């Protein structure tokens, strides 16, 4: 069981100052190595003494992994760039404000100062049964404690649950999927670039991980093409309290609109499944239609098709329906009769 202690279990600490050195260390230690970015997820695991890696590779000293680089075809964000830097970067605020909004809604200012974009997309799920150290599927066991008649599953998945019903907690992930970002990985076989949506995996593929990184792999940068720069964006995060909380659900959309007709759109939600979902069916359905409330309602209904609520999270279905509706049709202001 999780017993929070002040002293972490012993491990060997490595602090490389180049990507090449980090890769060597990761390959050398394989599955025994733990990659630490900002440390916000890592220290929880280590202080709870649930994860006990033999080697921790701290990436904070690698300059190559930090900063935002602007090119003619978009931007490249180093994986160790803090969320605060992402939020405050003028080009991101001007052209890719969807990401700035998503990143700004993550946690608290202090956490955003320390947390990194790479860590935010790669962090582990917050399911408390799993984080509590219980031997659930995700921890290598044979049961999901949340998916039981009495399990506390208010925050858990309504879509694509496969034995495990944990959800991905990232706020920046859906924004990056909507912006058609590419994730740059360094693997033992060389550099690999994957679409943002393909970086994340569900329990049907691997029940113990939320992303495709294998031992020895490293996320080095996130590239955002200029395709969606300055598009019409929408980001909304719903949480129990408006500071320092993980999303119950969030939605991110990027639309190219001509007149009021949706020419093209990318739409993603997170908090509904173990991976952020790109809603392709919805995108196809609304393309060529007016960006109105009626289209939004149709899109919302389509978005939740196939959703299966657990004992305590049925509210997520109308919530997701409405978030998708607002992402497409906009937010209707409250109308006062008098």
């Amino acid at each position, binding site marked *: *069981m999780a017993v929070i202690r002040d002293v972490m279990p012993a491990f060997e600490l490595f602090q490389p100052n180049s990507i090449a050195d980090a890769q060597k260390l990761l390959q050398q230690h394989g599955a025994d190595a733990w990659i630490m970015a900002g440390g916000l997820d890592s220290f929880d695991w280590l202080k709870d003494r649930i994860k006990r890696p033999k080697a921790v590779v701290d990436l904070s000293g690698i300059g190559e992994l930090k900063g935002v680089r602007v090119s003619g075809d978009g931007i490249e964000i180093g994986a160790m760039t803090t969320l605060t830097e992402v939020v405050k970067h003028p080009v991101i605020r001007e052209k890719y404000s969807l990401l700035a909004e998503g990143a700004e809604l993550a946690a608290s200012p202090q956490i955003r100062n320390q947390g990194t974009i790479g860590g935010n997309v790669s962090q582990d799920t917050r399911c408390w049964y799993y984080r509590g150290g219980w*031997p659930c599927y995700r921890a*290598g*066991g*044979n049961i999901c404690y949340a998916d039981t008649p009495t399990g506390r599953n208010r925050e858990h998945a309504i879509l694509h649950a*496969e034995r495990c019903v944990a959800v991905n907690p990232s706020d920046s992930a859906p924004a990056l999927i909507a912006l058609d970002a590419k994730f740059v990985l360094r693997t033992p076989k060389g550099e690999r670039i994957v679409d943002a949506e393909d970086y994340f995996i569900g329990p*049907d*593929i691997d029940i113990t991980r939320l992303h495709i990184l294998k031992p020895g792999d490293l996320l080095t940068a996130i590239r955002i093409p200029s395709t969606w720069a300055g598009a019409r964006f929408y980001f909304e995060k719903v949480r129990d309290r408006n500071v320092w909380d993980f999303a119950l659900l969030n939605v991110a959309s990027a639309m190219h609109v001509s007149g009021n007709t949706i020419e093209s759109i990318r739409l993603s939600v997170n908090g509904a499944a173990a991976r952020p979902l790109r809603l392709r069916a919805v995108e196809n359905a609304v393309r060529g239609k007016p960006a109105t409330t009626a289209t939004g309602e149709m899109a919302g209904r389509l978005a939740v098709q196939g959703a299966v609520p657990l004992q305590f999270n049925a509210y997520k279905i109308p919530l997701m329906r409405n978030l998708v509706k607002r992402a497409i049709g906009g937010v209707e202001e409250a109308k006062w009769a008098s």
Partner: protein
Amino acid sequence: MGILKPITEWATSPWGQNVPIHIAWFLIWVAALAGLLFLIVHSIYVRYFAKREEFAGSAPTTLAAVLPKQIPRHSLAARLFHWIMAGAMFTLLVTAFLPKVGVRFDWVTYHWIAGTVLTVSIIFHIIHASFWLDFWAIWPDKADLVDALRRVRRFMGRPAPPPRRFAKYPLENKLYHGAIIATGLSAIGTGVFMLFRVRTIFFTRNPYLFSDMTWGMMYVLHGLAGVGLIGLVMVHVYFAVRPEKLDITKSMIFGSMRREFYLTHYDPQRWRVEASGSPSRSEGD
């Protein structure tokens, strides 16, 4: 539980109990290597050391004139069952163990569907074999044991008369069938209950159907049966492709075997074939 410790993985349940959660996955490699080792040793033995097969008496050549050229052995229903079961078994092994050795894909759905097909086919087989075939043909009898003893004594260079020709199924087949029954039914029996842990069309999920210890033992038994089947399937495929067994393999495809093969290896008294060519009741399974 002591003997299980080295071959199982354990965890602490929310109630503080130490419970097994599944087999240790290195057993996959142990089973595969054991199967491979058997294949290598057997093929070397057959190639360099084995003596020519000898049976008591001579083949009844007079029968050749009255028997059909192709001796019916497996009915269409029996063959369909065999190949459906084989397809389900391969699917089960691939979907169970490839993810454990690093090949990631959506395996659970394929696994429980293949398990369902296997279960239904086994139920069919039990009913079919009990009421339409010679149920006892696949179980060892006294003659099998006497002949086995003769073969062992001769193998060790001790005096013994040559063994008789086989009944429809040699003792090795019968023992293999017994091993498949033990492992297969263990996997199926536990697998049916494990369907309560995943979302299927059959049951409402109920992971609290049993205690954590019972569930754990069920997962361990399922895993042990599964790795056992790795070795058994390897051995089965190996014998199926061995040149001297090809007549038997072909009979599982086409339903019959050559008359010469039948007369050389089988005892017409123990596996009766109608002279007209129509199979007797003990045939066609």
